């Protein structure tokens, strides 16, 4: 149940009171509050009807009520307590055996209807003195204003009531919630000055989607997470998805390892595969095989025992799984062994934070190394319109947060058809990703073929060739290069006669790669060569051995611990 943390005043003032924090019992909310709810805080829970105020307060109450410091839920005006009891017990947090033991309900509707706030206050105080609760909820107090028909200044009376109530509750060491239907433009009310914390809940409908959000406008003594945080109410109660989740030590983790794409030839084009911790986008028109590429990336990881998370937004998981079978990998088995999780997310009122939360939780649970997002276009459609409006920002937050986990991300995105030129992501988010692969259709000798090119790989050398590829029954098959063609990005390339590429007599494969890296850079150390090419530094076939051979053949000369190229072929 209750698990208290402390916010310490620091070494400078050890004699000052440490602020105890209560576990709210609402997933995601403790993070927003910088650890939890300060004990003895007097909090206002405001917002539109139906926004989730009662449920949130009830959830906090159940999370913190104990036999020695019970919870007390007081109903004034608003939802009748009968209805409240009927509906709230549908939630998972509502533990029926605890009602009457450490969770108590008190109805003061009759007193509230008289408009006599003094009497209401007296009853509440009497109950607090008798029960000595740790948490009190008063639901709701705003309507007390309307009940004071004989009073010339009902708002002033209410303000006094709140002041005195706050005083009493703090004296009795109670953490409390006052629920009120206030609108955002009423934040200037003096009542809000009294409160230590203000929680603002909203519920907005946009076309067919309903999005609930929470903002913690104020919390004394806490470094709040700012902004509007998405909320969802399910059978378990309220869950909040912090807007900019940060965890200690969440920095970009890029390793030196390379991950295989699972496609023969593509790893070589990338000079070893995808750098670990990178975010890669595969952009292509419809039907170019993006999902198959992504699947092969996932399967490559599963084959060597890595755990993988696949987030899909378009295809149903069963369709996805049967497609994978044709690639020779039984994803069902990987799922059974806990190495693979497929997240199917299509509620059409999704928020970025929910998506991120789901993926992060799953990555943590199975220790995933690879994450596939298929596709970014589908993700956009699944979002609630309010988040779709600024999709770039949404994507920025999603990819930024995921790369902080140290996983390698493979995302697919559909680019518009019918445009010439090299279409990248279509979302102007190229800057977010480390690596971009672009697929397109080309017309070659009267046939519609598929081609791909590596557009960029941050901090790494890569092939710049266009390569044709086919989709076969067992996956992607890279074909010949389109080196002899010009105008590939137009969709109708033309074959040109050209001078053959320079060759390096006596050199093969990795030796050419090392030499060209040195030439391009104008001089490198062995360590730099290893990093750029992805080749091991020592051992058979390592950079040290290759450079020794290149030196012997006079292709490179040594200058201290750096090497420069001796030969510069024509056209290079």
């Amino acid at each position: 149940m209750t698990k208290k943390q402390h916010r310490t005043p620091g070494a400078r003032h050890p004699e000052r009171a440490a602020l105890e924090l209560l576990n709210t019992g609402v997933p995601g909310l403790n993070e927003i509050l910088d650890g939890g709810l300060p004990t003895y805080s007097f909090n206002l829970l405001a917002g539109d009807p139906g926004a989730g105020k009662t449920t949130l307060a009830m959830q906090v109450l159940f999370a913190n009520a104990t036999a020695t410091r019970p919870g007390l839920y007081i109903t004034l005006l608003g939802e009748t307590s009968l209805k409240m009891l009927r509906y709230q017990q549908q939630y998972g947090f509502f533990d029926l055996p605890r009602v009457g033991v450490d969770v108590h309900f008190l109805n003061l509707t009759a007193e509230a209807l008289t408009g006599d706030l003094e009497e209401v206050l007296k009853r509440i105080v009497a109950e607090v003195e008798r029960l000595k609760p740790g948490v009190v909820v008063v639901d709701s107090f705003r309507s007390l204003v309307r009940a004071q028909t004989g009073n010339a200044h009902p708002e002033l009376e209410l303000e006094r009531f709140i002041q005195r109530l706050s005083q009493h509750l703090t004296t009795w060491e109670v953490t409390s919630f006052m629920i009120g239907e206030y609108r955002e433009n009423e934040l200037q009310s003096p009542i809000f000055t009294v409160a230590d914390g203000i929680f603002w809940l909203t519920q907005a409908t946009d076309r067919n989607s309903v999005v609930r959000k929470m903002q913690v406008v104020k919390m004394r003594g806490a470094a709040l997470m700012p902004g509007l945080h998405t909320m969802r109410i399910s059978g378990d109660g309220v869950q909040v998805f912090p807007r900019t989740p940060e965890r200690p030590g969440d920095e970009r983790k890029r390793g030196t390892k390379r991950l295989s794409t699972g496609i023969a030839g593509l790893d070589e084009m990338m000079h070893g595969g995808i750098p670990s911790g990178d975010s890669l986008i595969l952009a292509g028109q419809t039907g170019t095989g993006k999902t198959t590429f992504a699947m092969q990336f996932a399967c490559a990881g599963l084959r060597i025992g890595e755990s993988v998370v696949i987030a899909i937004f378009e295809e149903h998981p069963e369709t996805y799984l049967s497609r994978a079978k044709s690639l020779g990998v039984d994803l069902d088995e990987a799922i059974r062994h806990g190495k693979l999780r497929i997240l199917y997310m299509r509620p059409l009122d999704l928020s970025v934070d929910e998506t991120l939360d789901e993926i992060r939780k799953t990555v943590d649970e199975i220790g995933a190394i690879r994450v596939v997002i298929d596709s970014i276009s589908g993700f956009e459609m699944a979002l609630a319109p309010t988040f779709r409006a600024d999709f770039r920002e949404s994507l920025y937050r999603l990819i930024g947060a995921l790369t902080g986990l140290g996983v390698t991300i493979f995302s697919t995105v559909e680019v518009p058809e019918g445009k010439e030129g090299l279409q990248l992501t279509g979302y102007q988010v190229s800057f977010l990703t480390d690596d971009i692969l672009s697929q397109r259709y080309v017309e070659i000798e009267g046939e519609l073929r598929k081609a791909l090119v590596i557009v960029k790989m941050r901090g790494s050398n890569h092939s710049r060739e266009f390569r044709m590829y086919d989709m076969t029954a067992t996956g992607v098959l890279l074909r010949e290069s389109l080196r002899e063609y010009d105008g590939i990005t137009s969709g109708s390339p033309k074959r040109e006669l050209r001078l053959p590429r320079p060759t390096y007599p006596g050199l093969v494969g990795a030796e050419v790669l090392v030499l060209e890296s040195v030439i391009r850079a104008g001089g490198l150390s062995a360590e730099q060569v290893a990093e750029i090419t992805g080749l091991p530094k020592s051992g058979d076939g390592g950079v040290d051995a290759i450079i020794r051979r290149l030196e012997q053949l006079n292709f490179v000369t040594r200058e201290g611990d750096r090497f420069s190229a001796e030969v510069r072929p024509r056209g290079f």
Partner: protein
Amino acid sequence: MALSDAAVTVPTNAAAIAVARRHWNSVAGSASTDEEVAAAADRLCLELHKGLSRWIGVEGYRTLQDRALQEIIAEHPALGKLSFGGNDETANLLAVRESGRKEVADGMVALVALVVELLGRIIGIEMALRLVEHWGDRARAES
């Protein structure tokens, strides 16, 4: 899920009847005279009002009690002569003398049981039993 029948002329839930009988026995004890039975009816009315109003409000309890009385009066006409304000011993004594001690006792048990059942239809029988049991224990602890 079909809606339950609106009319309930007698309580049928065994747990509700048992808890109602328990409450009656705790206030009536071994009451054997008209005065003792009247006083017990009085006390039970007061405890029922005080205990349940706390949870569901004065108005909430009152409407529940009114409905229960309306449903059950045909089976237990003795209830029609009782005062449920919890402060009219004279009226209740008269009712006992006119209707009989057993009839009043049976009527009170049936009324409390029906209140629990009706409450259970709204908030679930488990919750209703819990509230009524807790109310009763607390009332006795306070008195």
